[in-house]
């Protein structure tokens, strides 16, 4: 029988997801890629929520939190994709480095 994974394992997975997401955001020049990185970061946080929820009285708080995060992520993706589409209409590319009009 496999022994149950302890909390650290979950936290480790979450941290890996988070770091992957951040690296993705920092390195990708494609806007869609940046969005994917954001999703990874959020899901890394979700894993942490669910893992910690075991130690709460009801045992459900974290799950509810992550459901909210997922819903928000969906909304955020919709908005972000709309922005990306507009960006594309204006620049004929989705390279985020081209969007430097606000440079000081």
């Amino acid at each position, binding site marked *: 029988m496999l022994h149950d994974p302890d909390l650290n394992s979950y936290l480790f997975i979450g941290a890996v997801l988070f770091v992957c997401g*951040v690296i993705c*955001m*920092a390195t990708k020049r494609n806007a869609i890629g*940046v969005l994917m990185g954001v999703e990874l970061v959020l899901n890394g946080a979700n894993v942490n929520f669910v893992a910690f929820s075991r130690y709460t009285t009801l045992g459900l708080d974290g799950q509810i939190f992550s459901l909210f995060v997922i819903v928000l992520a969906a909304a955020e993706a919709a908005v972000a994709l709309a922005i990306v589409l507009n960006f594309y209409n204006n620049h004929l590319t989705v390279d*985020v480095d081209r969007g*430097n009009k*606000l*440079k*000081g």
Partner: protein
Amino acid sequence: MVGETLQKLLMTAWLLPLLGFVVEIFFGFWSKNPRHSKAAAWTAVGCIGAGFLCSLTALVMWGTASNAFDDGDAEGWMSQQADINHARHPHHEADSSEGAPPHEHEGADHDAEHHGSSEAGADHILTAVATEDDGGPKLERGQTVYSGTIYTLGVFGSLELTLDYYIDSLTLVMFTMVTLIATCIHLFAIGYMSDELTDEYVDHFAHKADGSHVHRPGRFYRFFAFLSLFCFAMLGLVLAGNIFQVFIFWELVGICSFLLIGFYTERKTASDAANKAFIMNRIGDFGFLIGLMVLWTYFGTFRFGDTMVDNEVVDQGLFSMVHRAEDGNFDRDELTGDVLITGTDGHVLTNEDGSNRQIPYYLLVVVGLGIFAGCVGKSAQFPLQTWLPDAMEGPTPVSALVHSATMVAAGVYLAGRFFPMFVQEVLLTIAYTGCITLFLAATIAMVATDIKKVLAYSTISQLGYMMLGIGVFGWAAGLFHLITHAFFKSLMFLCSGSVIHGCHHEQEMPKMGGLLKKMPITAITMLIGVIAISGLAIPGVIAFSGYHSKDAIVASALAFKNANSAHFLLFFIPLLTAGITAFYMFRLWFYTFWGAPRDQHVHDHAHESPWIMTAPLLILSVFAAFCAVGGDHGYLYLLLTGDEPAHLEAGVTAVGDGITLPAIQDIVDEHTTAGTWALVAAVSGTLIAYILYGTNFVNVEEMKRQLAGVHGFLTNKWHFDELYDALFMRPAHKVAAFCAWFDGAVFDRILHGAAKATVVVSKWDRVFDENVVDGFVNLIASATQSVGTSLKVVQTGRLRQYVMFIVLGVVALFAVMFTTFPG
């Protein structure tokens, strides 16, 4: 119950014109066509007419309740006294069985006024009132008064300012008289003022700088608004239950007078006259205020009568605070001679330290003279008489209502109302003031040629008669004349208005003449007024009102002369003036209506006025002729004297070398003598007028030349205007010129110096401001800008770079956290 009903009726009559005023003054706002509509006028007529019906009902109620005309029968007063006690009970339920029979039709006034003639058999005025005295009810002559508080305006420490009412027979008669005359005059004014019903009224007497006439919108509804406000003020004055309230309405009446005299405000003469009237009245009111202050300081109340609750006196009034002894003089302290202030039971009130409350005698004289000074201003007595003739600049209905029948009568009314507080010295002053005034004004009236000016001087003269009557202890005579005079003088003013209207605003009598055929109604009603004021009569057959009332005054004066032979002038001058009165009044009538036309143009265009103007003339002429039927046994006189001040009956005996005031009986004894003399004077005056102006027997122009000196002196009104000009105006101008010079030479220098100093200081201030304050502010701004410039390079606009910054930042935060809080 009678008291409550009376109060409600009179309050209604009083407040209705105020309602009318509010409606009318906003009439231009409410009406689509305000300049052409007569609705405002009818509103005013409705209000004052309803007020008349209320007053009349109240008067009839009073007459019924008092039984004043059942000789020697005291039942009425007694039962009424019981009613008062009920009425003064605040929680008493309304008792409907005590209501008065309502008289709502116009005819009732004729019934009421003429009723007395059939009961002239009563040989002496006897009204009795039951007063609670030691053992039980005891009959004695006295007053029945309903008084109380309507509304408390404010309480300042022990000073309580209230709206009170004070209802006695004088109040009721005044109310009925004022509302009746006002109703007639309102009706008349609808006709007289009808040329104001236009969008563009051309004022032929007002010129612009380029000499053209003034064009302005018609002010028909505004005129009636002012009239209504005036009626409200006058009725409030009569109803007032304390002297302060009288003062309030006194001023309101004054301001209405100001507004109405200056109604044609574009005319310089009119606005000057309005100012003159107002300022002259201020002089009198100054004395009034002094009187009020003394009253407040020593008596601590302004109320006339006592306020009763549950048959107990809760607030004592002024009239019961001074007590008269058997001989009619005030109770005085034996050592100091000060007048003692007593409670309602006649016992002397004491201060907190146990000493008697008292007022120095001379201050009581000051009070009387002060209040009388107010009356002098309002009633245009010498030496403040000059405003009234100028007040004729107002429209004629105003002259009739305000400056003959009511407002100027307010002074006489107040003198009568405040009579119980007057001491002998004050009464003598009143008598001599009246005496001088009546002679002065009558002489000027003899030579005046403006029809309204003659009537104005005649008004002053008659007011002088009233004051004289009051001054010589003929209280009832003076007020009797006040009522009768109001009727015939308003009648004559309306007649003159009708003439002026018919002659297209021609007021000079030398241009009239022969108008009898053209304006028969006006001429006949005018003749009735003239006969009434002249005091002509066929004794025992027919006598118009003026005969009775003037007789009463002359009789009082004669009785006074008999008691104090040093003051013989107080009898002879009025007697002489009675002749002069007849002379100038008939002169006016002959000039205007008799003989051949002097100015064909005016005569050709003259026409009788429409019915709305002649109907009031007819109504008023009936009253002018018959309101005093029966003389001092008649209804009106008995009503008035029902409540005359108690000490009149026995007269006042002189103390030391003072003056003796006659008792009622003395005056009655002299009636026949005085009446005969007055009639002789009046008849001779009439005859002279007829010879001079009714026939061509004597050449008047020639006579005028012969007497040029006297004539000029009289035409210039005894040079009073010039005298006041020299005494007051020029010194005032001199002082003003000096002030102007002082202002320019001293104050302006100081001010200019201050201004220059300010400029210098400001220059320094500017330097400081520009360099220090602005420099500091600019420094902050430029610092902010340079920081911003140096920071802007961080904003590269590259998304991935920002994410890296975030990551690095987070890592840095963690690093800091772990190093700061290890473990």
